[in-house]
């Protein structure tokens, strides 16, 4: 059962849980429904309870540490954090640890990456005195184990979760809000099951054409397609899933934080990471970037060097972003590229501002051509780094060798220029479309327009899902 993906089964399950949850406004009832739904969800993904033991152990250790911190052991916070990080790395089997040290039976790790952040968050907030309220076992499990955020986030803060889950009177849920969430679910389902599918087909096809071309087929076009398409696939896949879980959570009267804000509109790589997987970068900004920057600034007196400390902090933070995504050397390099990209971006800003002066630099940063090219470069760089996200060293080597370094350089220039043009066009078109208004607001985002889009998207997604889940036909003759 494809419960862990943005499948029809998952959506129906979520809607059923939301309906049950809304049978009573009582916080106890809503919490019990959420807890049971989360248990059922995990059970449907993995039927063997033994494989859940390591994850259960991780959660238990996290809770024990939480109780210790709540009991006055805050001075051991740093050691606790290190221990939790180590435990996470060990359970995820990061390849820089010795193979012999790992558990040698199959166990469930889906969602562990996000549980890790939630556990660390409550530990740090409690240890630093941020979380005043004592978190009981039930609240802890509801927060860390919540099925709506289990698989791929978003990473919600505990205080925000508690604000919506535990008040005596839940936040309102009227017909208009229900309609908007259903529309968002349809939109998310369309993104994952139609758009992401199409982009993935293009990518797989381009890769096959590049590595094993049909006789007489050119390789430059598949190379270009391969370079361009993965960010689109990832955005459609990830943001579509986020749309679904945010809508389902809202139907259960919990407001999850947004995770995407038009990331391809970002004018630089730093801005990109404030629009893409927002909760991840916010979490790392709060618990890595800010503390690290403060720590190094305390140790370095020179004012001239201080801007470059920001560069270093960015590198460290976004290197961890890359590393968190996977356990192999490809992800280490992915982290280097993410950290490097952000660091170079910051260095560029610092250097350019130093060279031009503050006001001229700000004027340049507002120049539409500069912004357009920067936007295109951001897209191209992100797409380049993603090769180490979806591929492996051997395949990257084959892809690189398929057309040679010079042609690849040309391809990336073409990606940069194409992204510049397309995104600039969209940034021009979007406000124009939204300017078509009535007294209630833009026509194209009115509830009537949303109903039309979601009906069309829903029909297409539904038909494609049915067709793709039918077996491909063999030869069947027509009758006379």
């Amino acid at each position, binding site marked *: 059962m494809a419960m862990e993906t943005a499948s029809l089964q998952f959506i129906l399950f979520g809607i059923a849980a939301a309906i049950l949850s809304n049978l009573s406004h009582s916080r106890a009832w809503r919490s019990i429904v959420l807890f049971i739904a989360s248990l059922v969800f995990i059970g449907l993904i993995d039927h063997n309870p033994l494989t859940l033991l390591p994850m259960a152990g991780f959660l238990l250790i996290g809770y024990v540490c939480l109780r210790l911190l709540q009991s006055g052991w805050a001075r051991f916070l740093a050691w606790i954090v290190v221990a939790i990080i180590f435990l996470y790395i060990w359970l995820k089997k990061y390849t820089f640890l010795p193979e012999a040290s790992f558990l040698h039976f199959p166990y469930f790790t889906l969602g562990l990456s996000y549980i890790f952040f939630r556990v660390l968050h409550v530990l740090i907030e409690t240890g630093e005195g941020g979380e005043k309220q004592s978190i009981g076992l039930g609240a802890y499990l509801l927060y860390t184990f919540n099925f709506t955020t289990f698989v791929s986030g978003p990473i919600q803060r505990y205080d925000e979760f508690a604000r919506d889950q535990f008040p005596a009177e839940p936040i309102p849920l009227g017909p208009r809000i229900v309609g908007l969430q259903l529309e968002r679910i349809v939109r998310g389902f369309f993104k994952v099951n139609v758009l992401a599918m199409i982009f993935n087909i293009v990518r797989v096809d381009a890769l096959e054409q590049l590595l094993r071309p*049909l006789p007489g087929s050119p390789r430059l076009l598949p190379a270009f397609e391969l370079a361009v398409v993965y960010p689109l696939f990832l955005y459609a896949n990830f943001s579509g899933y986020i749309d679904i879980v945010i809508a389902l959570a809202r139907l259960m009267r919990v407001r999850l934080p947004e995770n995407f804000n038009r990331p391809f509109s970002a004018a630089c790589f730093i801005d990109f990471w404030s629009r893409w997987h927002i909760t991840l970068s916010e979490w790392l900004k709060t618990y890595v970037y800010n503390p690290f920057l403060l720590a190094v600034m305390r140790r370095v007196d020179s004012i001239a060097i201080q801007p470059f400390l920001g560069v270093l902090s960015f590198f460290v933070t976004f290197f961890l972003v890359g590393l968190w995504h996977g356990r192999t050397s490809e992800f280490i390099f992915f982290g280097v590229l993410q950290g490097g990209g952000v660091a170079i971006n910051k260095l560029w800003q610092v250097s350019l501002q130093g060279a031009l002066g503050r006001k001229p630099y700000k004027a340049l940063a507002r120049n539409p051509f500069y912004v357009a090219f920067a936007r295109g470069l951001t897209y191209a760089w992100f797409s380049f780094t993603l090769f180490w996200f979806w591929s492996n060293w051997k395949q990257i080597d084959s892809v690189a060798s398929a057309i040679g370094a010079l042609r690849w350089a040309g391809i990336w220039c073409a990606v940069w220029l194409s992204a510049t043009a397309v995104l600039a066009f969209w940034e021009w078109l979007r406000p124009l479309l939204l300017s078509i208004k009535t007294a209630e607001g833009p026509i194209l985002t009115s509830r*009537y327009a949303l*109903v039309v889009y979601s009906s069309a998207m829903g029909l297409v997604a539904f038909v494609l899902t049915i067709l793709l889940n039918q077996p491909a036909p063999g*030869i069947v003759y027509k009758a006379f």
Partner: protein
Amino acid sequence: MNLDHASNQAGPKEERLARRDWILLPLLSLATILLLLGVVEFFVWQGFSPPHLGPDAHLGWGSCTTFSPHTGVRGVPNTTCWENSYDDRLVEYKFNNCGYRGDTSCGPKQPGVYRIVLIGSSYSLGDMVAWKNTFAAHLLQELTRLTGRKVEIYDEGMIWGAPHSTYLRFDHVLHESPGLILWVLTPWDIQYVTLVAPVSIFDQTNKAQLDQLSPAARLGRVLGAVAHNNVPPAASKIIPNARIVLRHFIYESEGAQQYVQSYLMNGDDQAGYLKADLSPAWQKRLREFAADMETMQQKVHAAGIPMVATLAPDRPLAAMLSMGDPPPGRNPFALDNELRSIVTTDGAVYLDVLPGFRPIPESQRYFFPVDGHPDAQGQAILSRLLAKPLPAAPCLSFALPI
């Protein structure tokens, strides 16, 4: 994002839905869905309707084929008909004075001519492609070039020409005085090994065959027939054609791995020949084939005519060959190995063409996505793979000018 943010963060005061919206919004949704369905179906009909053929031209097989329970389906001599499909457009089928597809007449064998009689089902017929693009036409040219002899091919392949149907008219094949009988088999041939009557799955005369299948297999055949619009005429008018066109584009765009995964969703009745260990149902079909093959081989042996058989891949099999490593529990050569064993036991020659598809990347692209028959390029590949080993095959009377 603004709208999402607003709906996600709505506070205590919430805008009520106007009373008219309770009716207007569902109606708008329904209208959108119906309009979209109608527009797509309209464009599909516009794009895939057959061109006007003229008063004497016939669309469909009904006017140029005939059926007899003693011979199965045969071509009606001196007729021409046309077929229109969603995978390709209009294809002409011209049957000569003997009822074989081709652009030459049939008659007594001339001195010095090497006559090959091609038997089998729709692959041998060259279904879905123009005659000049069939592997039979290509093979004729290739063999003439390779051997330096005058070669002629009688294409007695026919749709619905399953092995038992071929067996029923085998005496007629021998009567043509062939120098060689070439039988191009396909997985479909073995799946429908005893089929003789070319009837719709919904026809009562096919009921006996359906009754032998498991419920799941029966449902699979019905769904397969619906997928191809192989339904009673009245139903065909209301079942959307857009879905066939959509499937065409889906399968056309899928890579080998994705397509094979889709195909393997079929049950054993349809996809069982791809398993490493063939099921009892497929073993039974092979035994039925072996029984007919044995009788046919006795006849050719008595007549002193060599017989060559081969298994040509269908689209899923071609895709699996191109993948390199098949999925666990699957073997693209399983059926090939069984057929080789049967054919060679009976003294005929077996040619292996499947290995020739292995090095071809994404070879399923040379087959029609929904229909599954090889297209013009697929036919050319098949012809090349047959032409090379055929003259050198043992017991053949070709004289190669090497």
